[in-house]
């Protein structure tokens, strides 16, 4: 059976430190001015003294039903055998249809390659070496979990079975593979 890589972001543990963001830049040589991964600190919400922030991870959601893949005219955007939404740089002409079609607005044009770019869970580098994605490794509070959800013994599978999680914009039918554990103090909103 193929792998089903998922990521879980525990918004209770996250402190918005951007270590993941920096680790991603360095691992994937992300050029200046563009990003594959941001953790937006939103808020504060609530009444003092019970204030809280929301830590919103903004990165490719690795949709099972990816709008960027279905709109791509050349097939440069594709889903690989492990379900990772990927890009053939040499097939991309830069029409930006995928950039426009992504409901999460996480695709961008790489200023160096001029092709569409985004998070691919470090597929070509760390994943290929059997390591965890850079953001997961760098996270100082262990707020990120990554693994194969098809393996029932994996940490992510156990987590998804035991914790309340949500995904963003599920009403669009995209079936994202980034799961979020909501802050206990906050409501569940996508």
């Amino acid at each position, binding site marked *: 059976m193929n792998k089903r890589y998922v990521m879980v972001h525990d918004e209770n543990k996250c402190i*918005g430190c*951007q270590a993941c*963001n920096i680790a991603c830049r360095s691992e994937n040589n992300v050029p200046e*001015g*563009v*990003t594959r991964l*941001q*953790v*937006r*600190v939103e*808020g*504060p919400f609530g009444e003092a003294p019970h204030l809280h*922030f929301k830590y919103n991870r*903004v990165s490719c959601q690795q949709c099972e039903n990816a*709008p960027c893949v*279905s*709109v*791509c*005219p*050349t*097939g*440069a955007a594709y889903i690989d055998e492990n379900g990772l939404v990927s890009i053939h740089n040499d*097939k*991309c*002409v*830069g*029409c*930006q*249809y995928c*950039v*426009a*079609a*992504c*409901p999460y*607005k996480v695709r*961008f*044009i790489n200023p160096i390659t*001029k*092709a569409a770019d985004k998070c691919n869970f470090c597929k070509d580098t760390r994943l290929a070496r059997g390591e965890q994605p850079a953001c997961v490794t760098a996270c100082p509070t262990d707020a990120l979990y990554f693994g194969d959800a098809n393996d029932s013994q994996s940490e992510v599978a156990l987590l998804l079975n035991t914790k309340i999680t949500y995904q963003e*914009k599920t*009403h*669009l*039918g995209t079936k994202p593979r980034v799961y979020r554990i909501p802050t206990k103090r906050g409501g569940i909103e996508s």
Partner: protein
Amino acid sequence: MNNTWGDMAQYDPVTWNWVIAVYLFMAGLSAGSVLIGIGMRWYSRDKQTESPILKAAALIGPVAISLGLACLVFDLTKPFHFWLILVNYNFQSVMAIGVAALLAYSPLGIAYALIVLKDDLPKWKLGFLSGIADLLMPFRKIIEVLLFILAIGVGAYTGFLISAMNAYPMLNTAVLPALFLVSGLSAGAAANLVVALLMFNTDTHSPEVAKMHRIELPVIIAEMMFLVMLFSALYFTGGSAATALASLNTGIWASVFWIGVVGIGFAIPLLAMLLPSSARHSKALMLTVACCSLTGVLALRHFIVYAGQSYIS
């Protein structure tokens, strides 16, 4: 809280800009012009002489689509790799289907222009093309039918192209292809008139001009109806779709809509129909009204592209 997460420029929801709006306009104009030119030829009893309207359509069809495609190619981040899009096809993608249609439509449009404008070629020092026109002449009927069908496809596909993106509630509606097709017809009629009057010296009282004028009113009414459907669909959907209605009363795109689309594109041509017949048939007024229709359609494409992308669900 300060931004600790870095540059936000890439997250601007407006990805496709005015270049795409101009392309959508040019494709609609080309298709509308061809549909009206060929449609009127089929409807006319005289199939022997090439009417000035048909000549105008035969000329506008390939010229407008070429200018539009030039916009499209130079809007790519890798313009010199545009040929990749001609050899790789993902038929799930509306864009790939559109590219395939354009790949047939553009050369057929040029072939049809050579056929219709055969007698005019020497005047434009293009006499060397007459030989090709003679070779194509026996295939006129089939070229005409194929071009007509492809023109419907080209006119509507631009609407499907942007309605396929379900992230944008204003674009993700079923009426958009229909709206684009009818507004393309209105732009095509206006452009046919301008070119027929200025280049092919048609008479403002000619029966073809009168016939083309008769479709103007139903086309404008259809356009207005589709716009009402578009906005009421957003209203009744509610939620993030309904917030897109704010584009009608806030910001620059509200002005573009009310002044450009409604005022210049609908009101002026409709009011001009109320003028006495003598004034209505003056060349100056006809040209002015036609330019207003073209401006209105161009404004509509800009409004849809920008306001549509500004609201995300």
